[in-house]
């Protein structure tokens, strides 16, 4: 392996207001190397990546490419210098052919300016064959292939466009285990092809397998750069968290006792597989997984917003078949606050109207008067302590935490049997987080069931009674929260 790094970052620092996102971080990448970047959310991975890919152009420190200082002004610049980025969300065009996707934006043309299909198909076939993907038919629409293959094609696209450095951000989170294997094979091929990869992932076992070296970030600082061969997952976890870890697996819980309000059996779709769980009366069940683990789509499936192929759902002893509108779910005692607040609240409408909307039919009259609605909404708005407390304010004018309180308040007036919340504390400050979670706990104490679906370990650990961990669409663990800590959650991913 060539010892001269092709890419070097020296004492990179970046501030956002009074937050030091990166503090004198050194990072280097050798030719043909896969260098993993690990750390908690907020450790500085994303910031570093954005500097590398030309998104953030202002920072302190040096950026060297082939030993020469460079300054990127845009992601386009980065690509021009051979730095390509694969985002977590795929950016392929499923309707276009594999070849077209490979040459997206840079279609090969004849001298008449028309697309040179023959040359494009031939080049695509050659490139795919060279990297061991000759089984792909370059003429087929990419959408016919599985998600993992689409991801592979996206990686190959950066290669075809000449990238020497490829940044992969959580490339495997949405992939099935078999597809992960295929991606790892691709990375091996790329290594032979002298391409360098920066690999960002939450899945530490995978990181140890794939990477040559691993750099650990914590609170904006570089903690260590290790040879992957000389480390293991529990060592990495202790470096990431900055303390001794206790990741002994707690005993698995097989069944929960009590009055079952929500029971899901063997629910299966393309993104989750054979998922079963129960939510009891007076209990918060947390479903934890990395982004892309399938847990958010699982929650959607309960409300007819994501199609599942098999399995069944029972709410308080009654069979439940999700419908297009959530009205059916609400009538059966199931309510949902989705992770995107923009999709669960009407931002331009007054707070009280957001609270009463699901209950207008209970007011009885055809014409709800404002006074009636305010009377209905006021106790709930007060209970969750929306600030400022004026119910006539539009929801869009509130802070994220207060918006979420409105989303919960709506279900306090006529409570459902089970409240399902995806990512209840996303983007909130500490105070708002704990307020929202304590409202959820109070709801649970009043004898209702709560299902919290999240990718934030703190949220899951703070609010849950029992926890299910999902990885790549499957349930991998089911435990009592009292036996759990963050170390275990990280290990299970």
């Amino acid at each position, binding site marked *: 392996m060539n010892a001269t790094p092709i890419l070097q970052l020296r004492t990179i620092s*970046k501030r*956002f*207001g009074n*937050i030091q*996102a990166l503090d004198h971080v050194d990072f280097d990448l050798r030719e043909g190397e896969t260098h993993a970047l690990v750390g*908690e*959310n*907020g*450790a500085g991975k*994303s*910031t570093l990546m954005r500097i590398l890919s030309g998104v953030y152009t202002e920072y302190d420190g040096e950026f060297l490419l082939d030993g020469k200082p460079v300054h990127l002004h845009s992601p386009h610049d980065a690509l021009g210098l051979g730095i390509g980025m694969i985002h977590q969300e795929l950016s392929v065009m499923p309707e276009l052919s594999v070849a077209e996707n490979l040459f997206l934006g840079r279609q090969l043309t004849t001298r008449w300016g028309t697309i040179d299909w023959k040359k494009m198909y031939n080049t695509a076939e050659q490139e795919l064959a060279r990297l061991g993907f000759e089984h792909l038919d370059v003429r087929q629409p990419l959408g016919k292939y599985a998600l993992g293959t689409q991801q592979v094609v996206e990686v190959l696209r950066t290669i075809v466009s000449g990238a020497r450095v490829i940044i992969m951000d959580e490339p495997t989170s949405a992939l099935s285990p078999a597809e992960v294997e295929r991606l790892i094979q691709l990375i091996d091929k790329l290594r032979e092809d002298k391409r360098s990869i920066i690999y960002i992932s939450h899945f530490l076992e995978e990181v140890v397998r794939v990477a040559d070296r691993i750099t650990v970030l914590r*609170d*904006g600082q570089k903690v260590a750069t290790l040879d992957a061969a000389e480390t293991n997952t529990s060592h990495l976890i202790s470096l990431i968290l900055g303390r001794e870890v206790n990741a002994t697996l707690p005993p698995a819980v097989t069944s929960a006792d009590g009055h079952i309000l929500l029971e899901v059996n063997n629910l299966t779709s393309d993104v989750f597989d054979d998922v079963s769980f129960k939510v009891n009366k007076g209990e918060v069940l947390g479903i934890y997984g990395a982004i892309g683990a399938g847990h958010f789509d699982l929650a959607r499936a309960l*409300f007819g917003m994501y199609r599942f192929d098999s399995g069944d759902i029972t709410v308080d002893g009654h069979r439940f078949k999700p419908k*297009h*509108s*959530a*009205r059916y*779910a*609400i*009538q059966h005692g199931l309510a*949902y*606050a*989705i992770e995107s*607040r*923009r*999709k*669960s*609240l*009407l*931002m*331009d*409408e007054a707070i009280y*109207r*957001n609270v009463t*909307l*699901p209950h*207008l*039919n209970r*007011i009885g009259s*055809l*014409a*709800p008067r404002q006074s009636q609605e305010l009377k209905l909404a006021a106790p709930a708005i007060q209970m969750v302590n929306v600030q400022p407390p004026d119910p006539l304010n539009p929801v*869009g*004018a509130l*802070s*994220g935490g207060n*918006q979420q309180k409105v989303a919960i308040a*709506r279900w306090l007036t006529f409570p459902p049997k089970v409240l399902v919340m995806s990512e209840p*504390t996303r*983007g909130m*400050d*500490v105070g708002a*987080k704990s307020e929202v979670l304590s409202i959820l706990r109070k709801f649970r104490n009043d004898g209702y069931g709560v299902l919290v679906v999240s990718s*934030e370990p*703190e949220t899951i*650990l*703070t609010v849950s009674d029992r926890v299910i961990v999902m990885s790549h669409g499957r349930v991998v663990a089911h435990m009592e929260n009292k036996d759990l800590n*963050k170390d275990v959650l990280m290990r299970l991913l």
Partner: protein
Amino acid sequence: MTTQTEKNPEIAVSPSKPLISGVWMRRITALAPVWTLLALALFFSLTSQTFLRPVNLNNILSQISTLAIFATGMTFVLLTGEIDLSIAAVAALTGMISAYLFANLKVQEPIPLLVALGTGTLMGFLSGIASTRFRIPTFMATLAMSLIAGGLTTYLSKGRTISQLPEVAVFLGSGRIGGANGFRVLVIVAAVSLLIGYLVLKYTRFGRYVYMTGASKPAARLAGVNTNIILTAVLTISGFFAGLAGVVSTGRLGSALPDAIPSFLIDTIGAVVLGGTSLSGGRGGMVQTLIGLLIYGTLRNGLDNIPSIDPLLKDVITGIVLFVALVINVLLAGRAPRDKTA
């Protein structure tokens, strides 16, 4: 327990926008059509000697009355963020049906009127079913419905105008209450349509659901609103009012024409949007539609009252005003704060 997410710079640095400017922006936006109306009225009363005469003002009212009936239905549809392109063709069909039943089949009144209204309502309902059940965009579903209605009109009429109209249609379209110079029944029909629309939108649960569906379909759905029923209902309402407008306009013109009047569609959408009802749904209402109709009527009528303007240029000028109003509508809609968490 540490909460690491707090250190996420994206979240921490996003400044909260000042709220006041947004609120004021909205107030100004909401009143923009009123300013436009006042400005146009002032302009025409200064440049034309005939514009302000009571006879002429009465004229404006009756000129916009047919449009007002169409616009009542269209307001419902636009508020949900959908569109109904079939109204002009449906109106031609219902006008023809009522005349055909009366003149050719000698059906007694008021059956021709009821059948005509029923047909309009049914066509709206079918568009609604097509767009909700089969997921055809309303743009396409109502366009297809427009062809069907137009074809049926041609088939029924065999291309001929029918001038023998049922009395109800004549009464609604050109009758007057209180003698030859009395108040036009047409204006009353239009006013009642708008008023009913206003009351339904403002004071009923259904009206609220219409706004909520337009503001955000996913959010409305999650709150338990059956948005499919709402969409079907607004298209049905639009069909009903198109049916009514069709019958009324035969009475006004004194005959049922074998072709649709395409300007009905454009003028209706133009007037509703000019009033400030958003094409993307959720914002607007009947008061806005009334103002939009008045702007439209004032503009068209005012141009007639300035002798120096070439009447052949009238459409061009109306088009330009409509265009400018739409641009302003889109610009302001883009600027209005919706969600700060995005």
